[in-house]
């Protein structure tokens, strides 16, 4: 089904009337910003690198490893691929321009937290970031809500962080970093994190970025281009983590846990459900703890839309959502201010029904996060 896309006037009218929750915006943290919030001795290390020139999502001894295409030639361009938001005031101003009511805050550099090899340092950065976030960023009155970063290197410490912030009114979820992660999130070593999240009724959101790192699915050095790496690793990371969680029993062991995935688009969801169900037909014995077929569990996963696919006929997105039954689990995300952010106006062009549009743009996120329209925890 196709229809003429709304004009700009109509788009603005649609967006202004909609209540929009943005499930993926990014703050900008730096070693210098986090240093005052870090435990000793790690504070000394962060202060030591505080004045290093900023490289987009790539600071040695903080967020190492390439994720911006630096493994290939860089031609001149006007594409603003390294936008950053430095303060909550700037974020609120810019989200207003996007007609967004509530924003869920993810980090910049800590998107690559799993790449660090030093366990205690990684855990210390995570603790410092959580302290800094609630001090400098989260603000219910500004509609900016935070996620507690769970450092995969030290699941016990991550569980303590979840407990520490579980009752904080402005920390509404747990961020599970995926870039360069090994082992994947289904591994039993992470159970303390899921147990804490479930106990405190906080949802978890998986978020990856593209890195080149010697772990699956980031061993992408064989590709020639960033186009190839970004197409695959970024999205495959989310998909393989879900496969790992389903096949290791995360969903059955933690049945009340709410899970969402970010920054992988949406059109892979039907494929993954169908493929896993097909595999289950032959290999049920591999997963004897599943009481239902894999797609049953995948259909409970919430999916953030960005970067939304843009087929010539945007009605294909509606069809895709029907295939994975995503009317109640799909949540708008912009990924502001990153290089491939989605402007909400694109969703005014998708031929959803008004009811589905309201759900995707805000109501599903309110339910997932268990908050009201003012960002207050229910």
């Amino acid at each position, binding site marked *: 089904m196709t229809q003429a896309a709304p004009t700009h006037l109509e788009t603005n009218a649609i967006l202004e009337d909609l209540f929009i929750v943005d499930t993926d915006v990014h703050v900008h943290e730096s070693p210098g910003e986090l240093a005052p919030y870090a435990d000793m001795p790690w504070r000394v290390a962060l202060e030591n690198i505080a004045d290093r020139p900023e490289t987009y999502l790539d600071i040695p001894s903080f967020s190492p490893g390439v994720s911006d295409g630096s493994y290939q030639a860089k031609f001149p*361009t*006007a*594409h*603003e691929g390294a936008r950053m938001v430095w303060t909550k005031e700037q974020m609120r101003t810019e989200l207003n321009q*996007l007609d*967004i009511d*509530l924003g869920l805050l993810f980090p910049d550099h800590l998107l690559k937290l799993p790449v660090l090899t030093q366990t205690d340092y990684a855990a210390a950065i995570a603790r410092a970031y959580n302290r800094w976030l609630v001090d400098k960023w989260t603000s219910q009155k500004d509609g900016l809500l935070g996620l507690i970063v769970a450092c995969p290197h030290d699941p016990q410490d991550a569980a303590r962080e979840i407990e520490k912030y579980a009752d904080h009114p402005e920390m509404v979820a747990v961020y599970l970093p995926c870039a360069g992660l090994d082992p994947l999130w289904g591994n039993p070593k992470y159970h303390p994190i899921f147990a804490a999240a479930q106990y405190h009724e906080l949802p978890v959101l998986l978020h990856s970025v593209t890195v080149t790192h010697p772990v699956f699915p980031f061993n992408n050095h064989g590709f020639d281009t960033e186009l190839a790496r970004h197409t695959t690793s970024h999205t495959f990371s989310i998909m393989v983590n879900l496969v790992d969680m389903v096949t290791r029993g995360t969903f059955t062991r933690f049945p009340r846990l709410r899970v969402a995935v970010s920054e992988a688009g949406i059109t892979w969801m039907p494929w993954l459900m169908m493929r896993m169900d097909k595999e289950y037909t032959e290999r049920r014995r591999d997963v004897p703890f599943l009481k239902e077929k894999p797609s049953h569990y995948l259909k409970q996963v919430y999916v953030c839309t960005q970067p939304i696919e843009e087929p010539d006929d945007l009605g294909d997105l509606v069809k895709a959502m029907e295939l994975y039954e995503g009317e109640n689990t799909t949540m708008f995300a912009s990924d502001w201010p990153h290089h491939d952010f989605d402007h909400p106006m694109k969703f005014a062009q998708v031929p959803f029904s008004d009811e589905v549009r309201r759900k995707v743009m805000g109501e599903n996120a309110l339910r997932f996060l268990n908050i009201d*329209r003012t960002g207050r925890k229910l």
Partner: protein
Amino acid sequence: MSGTIKKSKESIQAEDTLVRRGTGAFLEATPLPPAENGRKRYRVGGPEDFPDNSHRVVDVDGRQLGVFHIKGNLYALPNICPHMTGPVCEADILTGSLQASDETDWKPEWVHDGEVVVCPWHGLEFHVPTGQCLAFEHIRIRRYKVTREGDDIVVEI
């Protein structure tokens, strides 16, 4: 609605278009008598405002246009990217791009130097003289007629 976060009302083409250009940076056009074919004509500035190998956005009666002076020729494009309404003409540089074909033995060559505007929001490339989107053949931005008439740079809408 009570309790909701207040959103500011923005104009259709807000000045602060998330590219964080200084407000008031756009020249404002002044109307001229209409053309013989009935089209509206505006003076967007003088030749000194549009030196060769430069481009800038002008405000023509509420409509933002990018005026480009490239290798002695003038062009004008709307400052709205067809992708997601980004401020395409506010790109800070003009550049070229890469093409490859069997004629180049499939090796990339640098083409259209100085003639390509890349949208700051998502990197979509447009060849300014033709308005052609390099990634998608079916997308071509409309061009406005812009000419020099003595001391006036004139745009026809």
